[in-house]
């Protein structure tokens, strides 16, 4: 089936070349970082995780969101998703690949990454995160490929694939829950030490992932003869609307607990993010952008008239994506480190090499996504 990916229009190849170019720049920047160490990033003793881990966290969510297609289609027999469930699974594949790459580029000693498997440590959440991410990657490649191959031959998918599909449902939830545990199980970080971290992660994931998927469906419709259809897109839009509402609601719960309880250490990070703390306010414009965008997106998604207009819907989805990206990426990860354990403030701004490496990883992810989508879409076109 991969042969479908090596025939394509001029535009297709131009896009592929563009992505390869960006990933090439990313690889070169990574070699620079590899040689000089992580000092080429904006990270510091106080903010020891930044842009890379932020992307990782966000993308785990995007990956997990495939379950929002799998559940309706396979568990509730919602046939309309039949056409796009493969797009969700392949999006998950590329998102997990990006996650793994973001962890890799964040490591100080990347050559030793296999130590995680050589010395398995069941009490470390990161060990489990590796297990669930690898498993999820495998499951989605396997399921997506098998189902698509069957479709190509115009036969029903083999029965034995069903258990794997059912397994992928809790597995999707697990990847984002375990990723939330990376943060919510740390005793000294008040911003992260919250039981609703996992629910928050899942809510923002189920908003951002399907939002991206809607945009991808609209793009696929424009560049190919395959039309995912109006109705599945509308159903996805409702999922985004509910999930984004839950996401904003959960965030407001955090605000309530921190400020009504009056416990200063629970307020500091939120204050830093939204008002600035002791004169440090690098992230304030970003966080207000995210907050305002979040409310605009809710208005656009909840009002049926707007949601049903695909142009407005596309804008709403882009806004959801940006808002959740700022909130969960930069805000959550960087905010958790500020103030530091001494209640001092060190701010963080990513550097150029860090940005180039980040773009590089995204480009690799989109390269994988493009190839997989090309295969899926070509097969659909073939079948008419």
């Amino acid at each position: 089936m991969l042969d479908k990916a090596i025939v394509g229009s001029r535009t297709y190849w131009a896009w592929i070349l563009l992505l390869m170019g960006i990933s090439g720049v990313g690889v070169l920047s990574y070699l620079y970082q590899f040689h000089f160490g992580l000092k080429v990033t904006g990270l510091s003793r106080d903010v020891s995780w930044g842009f890379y881990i932020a992307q990782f966290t966000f993308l785990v969510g995007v990956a997990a969101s495939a379950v929002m297609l799998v559940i309706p289609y396979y568990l509730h027999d919602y046939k309309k998703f039949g056409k796009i469930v493969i797009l969700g699974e392949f999006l998950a594949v590329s998102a997990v690949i990006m996650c793994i790459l973001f962890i890799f580029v964040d490591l100080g000693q990347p050559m030793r990454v296999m130590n995680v498997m050589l010395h398995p440590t069941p009490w470390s959440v990161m060990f489990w995160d590796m297990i669930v991410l690898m498993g999820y990657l495998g499951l989605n490649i396997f399921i997506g490929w098998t189902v698509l191959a069957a479709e190509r031959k115009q036969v029903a998918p083999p029965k034995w694939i069903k258990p794997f599909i059912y397994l992928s449902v809790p597995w999707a939830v697990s990847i984002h829950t375990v990723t939330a545990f990376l943060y919510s199980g740390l005793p000294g970080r008040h911003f992260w030490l919250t039981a609703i971290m996992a629910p928050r992660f899942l809510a923002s994931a189920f908003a951002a992932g399907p939002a991206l998927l809607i945009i991808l469906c609209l793009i696929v419709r424009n560049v190919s003869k395959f039309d995912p259809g109006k109705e599945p897109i509308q159903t996805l839009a409702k999922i985004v609307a509910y999930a984004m509402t839950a996401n904003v609601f959960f965030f407001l719960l955090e605000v309530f607990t921190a400020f009504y309880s009056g416990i200063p250490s629970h307020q500091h990070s939120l204050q830093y993010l939204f008002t600035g703390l002791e004169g440090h306010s690098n992230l304030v414009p970003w966080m207000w952008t995210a907050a305002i965008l979040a409310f605009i997106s809710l208005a656009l998604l909840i009002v049926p008239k707007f949601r049903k207009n695909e142009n407005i819907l596309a804008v709403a989805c882009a806004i959801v994506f940006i808002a959740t990206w700022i909130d969960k990426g930069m805000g959550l990860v960087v905010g958790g480190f500020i103030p530091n354990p001494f209640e001092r403030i060190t701010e963080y701004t990513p550097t150029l090499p860090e940005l180039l490496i980040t773009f590089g990883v995204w480009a690799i992810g989109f390269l994988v996504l493009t190839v997989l989508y090309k295969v899926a879409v070509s097969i659909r076109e073939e079948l008419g």
Partner: protein
Amino acid sequence: MSMDRREFLKIAGLSTILGGVGGATILGGLRGEDVEASDSSHAHGNRPASTLAMVVDVRKFRNESEYQRCIDACHKVHNVPTIENPKHEVKWLWREDFEHSFPGQGHEFMEEGVEHKDFMLLCNHCEKPACVRVCPTQATFKRKSDGIVMMDYHRCIGCRFCMAACPYGARSFNWQDPRGFISNPNPEFPTRMKGVVEKCNFCAERLRKGLKPACVEACRDNKAMVFGDLEDRNSEVREILRTHYTIQRKPQAGTNPRVFYVIGG
């Protein structure tokens, strides 16, 4: 049955002696005997064979140089690089004022002597270290024989999860090759390489030779830092803990730090 802490410690201490352990383990360690070998034979009940701890008596630090000589002794002997940029700083032993050493524990009408006093901060070698719990490779681990939270620099992958987990900011990452920032290195102790996390090791390499930690040695004239075994009820640290009011950093984190501070009185 109710038992207060004091009673529990009494019984625990007594049973330790009856068990024939006493302070033999740590004394053995200080004399240069094999610490690890004594682990299995001396471990008693749920108590470890020995639990090394530090008491910092901040009253005894009278001026800048008395702090600095401890810090210098530590950083010199362990080849800790001197990096000016605070973002890339590496430190094993350092000073902070009360407000930042014990965030949330001060108040506006505090005794000025304590408020403006600098505290010596270092790895707490916690009983339940969060860093050890999160490390995905066991590159940082708690040594059973004496409770030291160790770093295996050969194994660390540099994920920095431990830095996020440590409630005490005790861990430093090598953002670059540290060698360019070490003048007159100690040839008997390795440096670190770029991309690994490092921290205080309670001078495990000196204990092995029967020496006291370098910082303790540096202030031996005023005994501002005292080191010893908590399992030995006659040890100097136990004596100070018994007779002085001491505090730990962030006890609410549930880690049970093994560094104690005498702050006044």
